[in-house]
């Protein structure tokens, strides 16, 4: 039961069905990459798992360690161990990263319990060192005026601090040059371990040179059309999505 399990999920915005009967399981300790062309529904999948209010789940369910996420508010899902690294993280003007993370960690404590400031900063500095982030970074307001690389690094820092059980990384590589990509990949790799399941959503194979997945899934038009090991990413790189798209309209072989 220690898995993030997506079962026969269907999602629509208005009349438009975006995810069509998608099933996928991410076990604790596993790294799954979901690859697909633009418009295949990858980001929708990420947001639906996290509980974004704009999407309508028409059928199916997502279970986290057996618990139905659709019965929980977005913040409850987060506190139970779900993390989403956003493709486009929001700015929170005037609120420093340090204060934001502190509030986030405080929200995970039982009522009446106060986060110990010294422990908090010790952990914060440890994670910042791990991710090679300058100490002055966390006194800046969350994502305000950040470059693309800084935004992604801020997401990974938050992930490191919040110790999720399952993390969904939505296009964490988009907008990054190769150096920034390496830093972010190193960060994710350093968090890998038996107590973290990751769903890595990406358009490009290049991220997978740095974060090597255990499993690769190809998503086209709202469903998984192929699954395999890490070599599938290379095949995709070679042949392109077109080859796979040709098969997409056929029923997936049982």
């Amino acid at each position: 039961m220690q898995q993030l399990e997506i079962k026969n999920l269907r999602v629509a915005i208005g009349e438009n069905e975006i995810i069509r009967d998608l099933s996928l399981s991410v076990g604790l300790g596993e790294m799954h990459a979901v690859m697909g062309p633009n418009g295949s529904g990858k980001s929708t999948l990420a947001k639906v798992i996290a509980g974004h209010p704009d999407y309508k789940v028409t059928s199916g369910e997502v279970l986290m360690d057996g618990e139905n996420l659709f019965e929980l508010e977005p913040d409850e899902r987060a506190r139970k161990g779900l993390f989403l690294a956003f493709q486009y993280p929001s700015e929170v003007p005037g609120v420093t990263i340090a204060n934001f993370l502190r509030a986030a960690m405080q929200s995970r404590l039982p009522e009446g319990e106060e986060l110990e400031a010294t422990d908090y900063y010790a952990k914060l500095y440890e994670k910042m060192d791990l991710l090679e982030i300058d100490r002055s970074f966390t006194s800046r307001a969350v994502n305000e005026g950040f470059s693309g690389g800084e935004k992604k690094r801020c997401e990974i820092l938050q992930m490191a601090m919040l110790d999720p059980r399952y993390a969904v990384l939505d296009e964490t590589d988009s907008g990054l040059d190769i150096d920034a990509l390496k830093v972010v990949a190193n960060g994710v790799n350093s968090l890998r371990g038996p107590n973290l399941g990751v769903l890595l959503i990406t358009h490009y194979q290049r991220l997978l040179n740095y974060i090597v997945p255990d499993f690769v899934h190809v998503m086209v038009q709202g469903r998984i059309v192929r699954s395999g090991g890490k070599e599938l990413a290379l095949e995709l790189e070679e042949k392109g999505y077109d080859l796979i798209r040709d098969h997409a309209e056929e029923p997936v072989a049982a």
Partner: protein
Amino acid sequence: MKTDTSAVNIDRDKGDFHYKVDYGYDAGVGLDERVVKYISDVKHDPDWVREFRLKALQTFESKPLPTHWASKDLEAIDFNKIRYYLAQGQRATRSWEEVPEDVKRTFERLGIPEQERKFLAGVEAQFDSEAVYSNIKKAVGEQGVIFVGSTEGLKEYPEIFRRWFGKVIPTGDNKFSALNSAVFSGGSFIYVPPGVKVKHPLQAYFRINAENFGQFERTLIICDEGSELTYMEGCTAPKFNTATLHSAVVELIALKGAKLQYITVQNWSPNVFNLVTKRGLAHEESEIKWIDCNIGSRLTMKYPGVVLKGRKSRGEVLSIALANNGQHQDTGAKMIHAADETTSNIISKSISIGTGRATYRGLVHVPKHLKNCKNNTECDALLINSTSRTDTYPAISVRGTGNSVQHEASVSQVSAEQIFYMQQRGLSEAQAMSLSVNGFVNDLVRQFPMEYSVELKRLIELEMEGSVG
């Protein structure tokens, strides 16, 4: 100043209670000459004050409500249904022991005696019409600092009081300053002698306890040459179903080189009409700073101002207004430049929640003959819901060539994406909202004394919790 900030308790629920009190003095309901004379009689006013009050009553009656520019909601005030004077007695005690038990427990519940012990140089506590307690620390008193109620001030220190009283805000300034001038009672009279720097703040706490009541305190603060003072006021009232009126007049005088800071954190219940006139007169090289936090009330109209009368004087208004459901915060600032090389700074932040409405009105006046005057105005509004409203009415008249003004305004909205982002990190919707609001006011609140900045943040959290979900 190291203090336990949890002592400054001004949260909404904490203020929403009232005990039954026996009033020995009651001017009855409604306003006419008889009521004004009653107030003069029980206070044993000198003749000049009696005349001042009666003339003010005429001015009040002759002036229309300012509904041609202000909210029509003012028409909901029924001046004939308000009680203008309620007190147990006229003399404030110097010790909490002597404060009658039924009144003392109110202030104890509000935490006032505790704060006094912890970090204040002096406290005045007003209950409905009169101060029941007024005291300053011995060391401060020995420096010659005077801190008493207005009634005591005009009697004991007439030579200082009369010289400045009504000079910064004349009776006829507006309808409500006239009303206050007719029926004023309570408020603080403070005089700081030349060169005396009062290290810790003096605080007044204004408490409305009675229903259908009007509180009309009158505060006059004079900082003599080179002196320094921080004064703080807090206000609460219980929630009643009927309208309560609070209409104060506050006059500040900073003589040459003095520094005077006046801090207000008001947390009125949503039935209070809060119509207050506040103005300072800054002499040469002096500085007057208003820090004004308006939370609660049904309608607040308040535009603290500084008349920059002396060369190189400086005026500042830092204000935060939070308009929750059904509330209207109509606030702003006035800066009247009347000498060369004067500078003024206005920073206003407003937050509108639900159907709340925040209005900013600013007046900056620099006449043609002046040189090297500067004004900076920033007003930022944050809208929480699509039903929230904000308006800005800046009036800047700057003549002459050697003067500069800078005006910036912004309106922003907490977006659904931002809230979702914060929720994904584990914050509830209300926590996310309140953190966003705190972020919005953060750079301004940082300039406040620590006791108030912490408390203000907590107060904002409470407001947000009550308004979301």
